[in-house]
């Protein structure tokens, strides 16, 4: 071998090249293209394309449906993320400390993550059935108010959020379990030496502060996944009743693919991307700050 460094450099480049090209073709290139497309006036299939500056964004600004969609997405995320994170954390702590039956509980709570959401959404449609559905039967039994959850504009978005919580809770749970395992046990022992070993004290003084980075991560992951809500909307409500479950990705598909307004759909995609990136940015900022002062 004449020059091993040169040989290594060539091998490195060649091995990385196929994935690098595919990454640009399928992901980075199209992401750039979506940004450029959003600055044009192109509708799918039209022969000519013209520069439109920020016209699509101006139209979005005045589009009532877009604002409803954005508002609904934010409500959906705002409801499902805290519920998912809180229940996931409770489940993780309870299962870690329960001893026998751990394997069963973990599997039961995680199963929805590994199942086909679309198939399960249809089961949920039946669960939310106004007369024979499980949900109303249980609510009636407990003396709680009942509703036609998916057909009522006041409840439909929350019913979808409940399905979202059900599906993502197990994910939050296993991520928290990994975080819990990383807490050194001697911290709890030290706390016990101080004479404080109640469950609440343990949680407040050790678990919660030590779990910080995991918490930020789980919130970010859950938020990003919730922003992508689409499957349940598409098969159960189609944005209705009266736009009460219209969410960003659904609006994007409607505009970009059903109405063939590619450029307008691209502008919605950019809004969606910016919101997702904002979550990631917030996550890194918070983690950095903790790293500096914590």
């Amino acid at each position, binding site marked *: 071998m004449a020059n091993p460094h040169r040989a290594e450099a060539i091998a490195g480049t060649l091995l*990385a090249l196929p994935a690098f090209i595919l990454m640009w073709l399928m992901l980075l290139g*199209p992401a750039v293209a979506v940004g450029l497309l959003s600055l044009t006036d192109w509708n799918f299939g039209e022969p000519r394309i013209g520069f439109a500056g920020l016209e699509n964004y101006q139209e979005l600004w005045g589009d009532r449906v877009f604002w409803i969609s954005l508002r609904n997405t934010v409500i959906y995320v705002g409801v499902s993320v805290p519920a998912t994170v809180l229940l996931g954390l409770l489940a993780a702590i309870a299962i870690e400390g329960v001893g026998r*039956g751990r394997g069963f509980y973990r599997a039961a709570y995680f199963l929805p993550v590994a199942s086909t959401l679309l198939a399960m959404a249809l089961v949920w449609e039946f669960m939310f059935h106004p007369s024979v559905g499980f949900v109303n039967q249980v609510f009636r039994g407990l003396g709680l108010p009942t509703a036609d959850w998916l057909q009522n504009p006041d409840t439909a978005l929350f019913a979808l959020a409940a399905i979202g919580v059900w599906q993502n809770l197990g994910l939050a749970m296993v991520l928290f379990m990994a975080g819990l395992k990383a807490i050194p046990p001697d911290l709890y022992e030290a706390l016990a030496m101080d004479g404080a070993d109640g469950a609440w004290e343990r949680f407040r003084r050790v678990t919660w502060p030590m779990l910080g980075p995991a918490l930020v*991560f789980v919130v970010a992951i859950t938020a990003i996944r919730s922003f992508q809500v689409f499957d349940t909307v598409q098969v159960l409500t189609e944005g209705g009743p009266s736009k009460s479950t219209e969410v960003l990705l659904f609006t994007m598909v409607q505009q970009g693919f059903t109405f063939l307004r590619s450029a307008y759909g691209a502008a919605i995609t950019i809004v969606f991307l910016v919101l997702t990136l904002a979550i990631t940015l917030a996550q890194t900022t918070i983690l950095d700050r903790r790293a500096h002062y914590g």
Partner: protein
Amino acid sequence: MVKRVLTHLALLTGAAVMLAPFILMLSISLKPPGEVFSPHFALLPTQWYAVENYTAAFTKVPLLRFLLNGLFVTLCIFAAQALTALPMAYALAKLRWRGREAAFAMVVLALLIPPQVPAIPLYIALWQLGLLNTYAAIILPSTISVFGIFLMRQFFRTVPDDLIAAARMDGLSEWAIVWRIMLPTAAPAIAAFACLSFIWNWNEFFWPLIAVQEEHLMTPPLGIAFFSNAEAGTSFGPLMAAATVVTAPLALAFLLAQRAFIEGVTMTGVK
């Protein structure tokens, strides 16, 4: 003691809620139409209707075809992902070449882009190539997994350099080192990567919905949505039978390989 019982009680209630949809799905898939809407829920049917429901699920729509499509698509996607991700991960983790840092920065950047973002340009490109409504249309956008590259790179970094140096002394090429040295040592990471890739692509609905309209190309989620639309809520028995069949492969795989699944998801959280 009391605390332990209470914890179990709370966890059991939670587990009942988490499992209720699965139990309901199985239960309805066994019942005749008359019992599905009975006001009092019974777990088991009085008149068994399983054969009729499951037969209907496979004959009213080409359910077997959907399952085979799903299998074909997920296998092709994972093969392409592994074939491209492993060499790049090795190059990023263990080789020195110009542009390595920049390439890795791009992988991290690509990780931040939600999979729905490239949809419109990809659709336009596939349309111009005349590839809409083909298997290629479903498969191509997923052939790259930046998550896989990232995961494998992190894992490969922990492999000792001596092992690679010894392989080079034995005359192995860099390509051979990826597959004969790195691949076997990274088995757990690859298992996690494979599990996630299968969960994600078997369940994927957004992109196949856009890319194909023809029944014979539909993947399981698309097929079952199509079935549900066609039946418009009239035949819950066969629909739940189809839902059971579609959910079963992943659910069973998960129950058999829980550790790989959970580890995979823990390593990432991405999907």
